[in-house]
């Protein structure tokens, strides 16, 4: 039991490395930097701070000319990697042990065990407990978080070596890992909300990591600082719903604890507490789902994820693809019994996911920014996960289907992002400017073969190509929608699968292949940029290879469903392959792949562009998807006219009413003083008149009182 009990070490170890880097090695790093002209302490402080934030060139923090890393900075990176590696090994041991592969400890009790608990405060009958618990679901998620975190940190060693603030970057990554693990370990809504806000904070810090970088309006790219604020604010919108939902649950049941809430017999469980009032429970669960909508960038809060791509690419891979954005899915899976008690809310989950999946896939079709395609693809895949959760009401599989896709998606989407980062990194060295536009790539496969082959693996995985992991997990969701009789979502997810295959192969060919390349255009072609790109260093390619292997084999963990959802049937590969529905899905994916292949390996980009421009219908559709169905513009209008309108009214109230009262009082006192000061004549006799006159008046009053009142 101690083997499980000690897993709080996994939770706290990233926090420890954060502290070590911030207070230890980063200080050393800053102190050991060469100074230009620092004589006084004040200037030193200023100088080192400026150095840290990067003073290289015009608003670009990433620059090949940045001086070599200091020892302190390198050690910071090693500290982060070492500690997360230990946590990763530990969580793998937990996973293998609970899955029955190895046996170094007895089996975990079915409800999991509490590893750390602290009575925060007791107030009346309500008690607020900070407690952390592990069970199979948490262990599966923990493995994803620590593994991707480890690979991303190794990768960042190569990717970030020319960037300012190297040590700071690793401290933020550690902080993020800790925050994410708080969500994973959370035993009640209180803790999960704390983790929710902590990942929001670390996401904000990491998106805005390159604080000196300017906006590039010609490429429709905002400044990272702006993107960070947008992500933070958009998430707060969802969190308002989340916290209101938690409060409704707490005020009705009197507890935050997941297990108590899920219990069907406990009087504090939702089934008892909301008996006869399922409408309120439905409202509460939809509000809680609002938190997931914000964090997982579902409609209508999709806008922040594409702009969040302004952060460094390893961050996009870790936070905005594999882990944090999947926190919404994890949270719904964690509270699945609660959602099951409110089937309408679960229906909302499914439909929001389905519509978002379709919307994001349509938008991804025309994006030209390498990372934006992946961002929309992430949104789309998260939509799939919510469909998987939403349609599984009343089945044995429960949250298994959605979580399985989360599990496989984490690997291949991290791989896609890290591959994209590898391309951006090498193009940055080749062209000395940041290139993310796929129209300036092409034919990169012959320059960067490892990146290209791993990217192709990920592309095929996400497209649902048979025998890759995405094939099993995505197909499972589509089949589940069909089996549950939800034909609307079945059609949507099936169509989206075709679109996914199309835009992913399009991105691959635009970057790595092209007309005239080998293998019918898949390998090499004309490079449309400048300079001579090279394959990335080993620290970058090794994580790619590891993830590529994981992307293929993750689908063969057939016991996943019964692992996270006791009683669920195992994945039967033979049954999947003999099911005609599977082959319909594969056919759709092949149509998408084939169409992208024909379009982008047989024709030049310019030709395609001319055809679209000369056809009114195509041009309209192209603009529609390129501008993300004008959702960003709608938000801009809403903020400009509604939010700013209310702000103007409030500003007027402040100016005229609040300030009016304050200034009015002050003005009255000033005016009174201006009048009264005339009494001060400076002549001694006028004072005497006042003095004796006063006495005379008093004397008369006293006299009158003595005579008449008696």
């Amino acid at each position, binding site marked *: 039991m101690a083997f499980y009990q000690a897993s709080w070490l996994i939770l706290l170890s990233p926090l420890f490395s954060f502290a070590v880097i911030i207070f230890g090695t980063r200080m050393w790093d800053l102190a050991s930097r060469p100074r230009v002209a620092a004589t006084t302490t004040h200037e030193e402080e200023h100088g080192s701070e400026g150095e840290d934030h990067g003073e290289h060139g015009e608003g670009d923090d990433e620059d090949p000319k940045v001086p070599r890393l200091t020892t302190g900075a390198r050690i910071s990176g090693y500290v982060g990697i070492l500690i997360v590696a230990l946590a990763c090994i530990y969580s793998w041991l937990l996973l293998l042990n609970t899955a029955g592969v190895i046996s170094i400890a007895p089996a975990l009790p079915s409800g999991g065990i509490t590893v750390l608990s602290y009575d925060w405060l007791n107030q009346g009958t309500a008690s607020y407990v900070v407690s952390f618990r592990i069970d199979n679901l948490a262990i599966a998620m923990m493995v994803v978080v620590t593994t991707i975190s480890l690979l991303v940190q190794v990768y960042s060693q190569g990717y970030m070596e020319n960037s300012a603030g190297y040590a700071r970057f690793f401290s933020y990554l550690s902080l993020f890992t800790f925050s994410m693990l708080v969500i994973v370990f959370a035993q009640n809504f209180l803790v999960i909300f704390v983790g929710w806000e902590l990942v929001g904070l670390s996401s904000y810090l990491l998106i805005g990591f390159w604080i000196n970088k300017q906006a590039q309006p010609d490429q429709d790219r905002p400044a990272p600082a702006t993107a960070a604020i947008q992500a933070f604010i958009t998430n707060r919108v969802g969190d308002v719903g989340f916290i209101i939902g938690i409060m409704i649950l707490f005020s009705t049941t009197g507890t935050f604890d997941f297990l108590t809430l899920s219990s069907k017999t406990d009087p504090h469980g939702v089934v008892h507490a909301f008996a006869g009032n399922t409408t309120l429970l439905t409202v509460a669960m939809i509000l809680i789902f609002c938190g997931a909508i914000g964090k997982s960038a579902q409609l209508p809060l999709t806008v922040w994820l594409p702009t969040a791509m302004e952060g460094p690419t390893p961050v996009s891979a870790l936070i905005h693809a594999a882990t944090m954005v999947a926190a919404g899915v994890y949270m719904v899976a964690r509270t699945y019994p609660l959602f099951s008690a409110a089937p309408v809310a679960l229906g909302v989950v499914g439909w929001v996911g389905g519509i978002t999946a379709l919307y994001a896939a349509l938008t991804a079709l025309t994006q030209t920014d390498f990372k934006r395609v992946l961002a929309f693809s992430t949104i789309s895949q998260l939509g799939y996960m919510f469909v998987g959760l939403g349609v599984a009401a009343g089945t044995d599989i429960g949250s298994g289907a959605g979580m399985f896709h989360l599990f496989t998606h984490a690997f291949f989407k991290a791989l896609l992002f890290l591959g994209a980062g590898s391309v951006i990194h090498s193009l940055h060295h080749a062209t000395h400017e940041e290139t993310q536009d796929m129209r300036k790539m092409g034919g990169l496969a012959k320059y960067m073969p490892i990146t290209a082959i791993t990217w192709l693996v990920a592309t095929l995985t996400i497209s649902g190509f048979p025998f890759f992991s995405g094939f099993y997990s995505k197909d499972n969701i589509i089949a589940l929608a069909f089996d549950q009789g939800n034909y609307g979502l079945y059609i949507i997810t099936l169509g989206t699968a075709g679109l996914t295959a199309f835009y992913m192969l399009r991105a691959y060919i635009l970057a790595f292949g092209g007309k005239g390349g080998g293998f019918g255009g898949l390998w090499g072609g004309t490079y449309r940029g400048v300079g001579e790109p090279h394959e990335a260093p080993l620290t970058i390619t090794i994580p790619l290879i590891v993830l590529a292997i994981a992307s293929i084999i993750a689908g063969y963990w057939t016991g996943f469903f019964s692992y996270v959802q006791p009683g669920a049937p195992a994945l039967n590969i033979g049954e999947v392959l003999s099911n005609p529905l599977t082959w319909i899905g594969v056919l759709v994916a092949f149509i998408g792949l084939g169409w992208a292949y024909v379009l982008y390996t047989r024709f030049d980009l310019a030709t395609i562009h001319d055809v679209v421009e000369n056809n009114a219908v195509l041009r309209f559709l192209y603009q529609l998807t390129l501008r993300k169905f004008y959702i960003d513009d709608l938000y801009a209008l809403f903020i400009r006219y509604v939010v700013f309108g209310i702000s103007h009214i409030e500003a007027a109230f402040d100016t005229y009413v609040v300030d009016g009262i304050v200034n009015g009082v002050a003005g009255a006192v000033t005016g009174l003083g201006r009048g009264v000061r005339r009494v001060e004549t400076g*002549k001694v*006799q006028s004072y005497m008149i006042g003095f004796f006159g006063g006495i005379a008046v008093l004397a008369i009053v006293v006299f009158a009182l003595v005579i008449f009142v008696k």
Partner: protein
Amino acid sequence: MGLTLNHFLVLGALLFCIGLYGALAKRNAIAVLMGIEIMLNAVNVTMVGFSYFSKVKPYSTYLTGQIFAIFIITVAAAEAAVALAMIISIYRKRSTVDVGEINLMKW
């Protein structure tokens, strides 16, 4: 009929009014000072009168009013010295002793 308390009080009141008039109406600072001295002495007369004619035991026995009068005379002497010194100082600076023109403390 001999002296009664009323004689003292009327004399004190008259002197006080004369002094008050002088202090309020005169423009010359020295005349104002003289008015103030008259007011002080009016009070002295009243005090002594009360002291002499008082029927209330302790006060008549212990001569409190008369001792008060002696104190006032002493303080008035000191006050006159200080006030005259100030008047001379002001005269040296401003070449006037007209209290209507001495208004340095005006708003």
